[in-house]
């Protein structure tokens, strides 16, 4: 099930992750507590519809159970 970027942002932040714009660019990124980063394909800004494949990828990166994240979307 795809999600709007703004909803995904809220869900990721509920897991203690920071969603922000990368320095000096217009690219968004997710930042974990130890500084680990993951880029976000937000080419349509907050309205971008994010594929489930991406959601599973970001969950793998930060060790989040995808089912738990999907409950927040």
């Amino acid at each position, binding site marked *: *099930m*795809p999600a709007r970027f703004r909803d995904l942002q809220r869900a990721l932040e509920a897991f203690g992750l920071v969603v922000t714009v*990368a320095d000096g660019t217009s*690219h968004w*990124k997710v930042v974990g507590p130890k*500084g*680990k*980063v*993951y*880029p976000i*394909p937000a*080419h349509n800004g907050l309205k971008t*519809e*994010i*594929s*489930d*494949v*991406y959601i*599973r*990828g*970001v969950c*793998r*990166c930060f060790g989040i159970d995808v089912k738990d994240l999907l409950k927040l979307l």
Partner: protein
Amino acid sequence: MDVASTKLHHRHVWILAYPAEDVPGEWIAHCLDVDVVMQGPTVDAALQSAIDGALFVMKSDLSRGEDPFARRAPESDWSDLLRVTSEGERFASDRISEKAPDMKKLAVQCDVFLDVDLHGAVAPIARDSAVPAPAWRVAAAPAA
């Protein structure tokens, strides 16, 4: 960072690209070597986004003293890649846009270059300014 203190690292990375099943009109591009998934409104945009994302992750991980290739994608994705490269049709990279609509999945190998500072006690620093135009090698599985 002076040139003498840097070393150019060259690496091939593999990207699997395919239409997103759940977002009509979008393409997924998954860089398996660093397990970065990106998407875009065209196959070219998705591939470029995956390359940019992979370089971003490599640069960040190297600056923190981490190995970006430890992020490697799950084995099931690598099996998928193997299937596409062994069974798919091969064609030149400049035909990606032309061929993509008729293809179910694309496997693209891209050369990336990182200029890494190995001088000093701190973690290496990567910069992506030395990235040349990527050379693509493509295989694609036809649409079912």
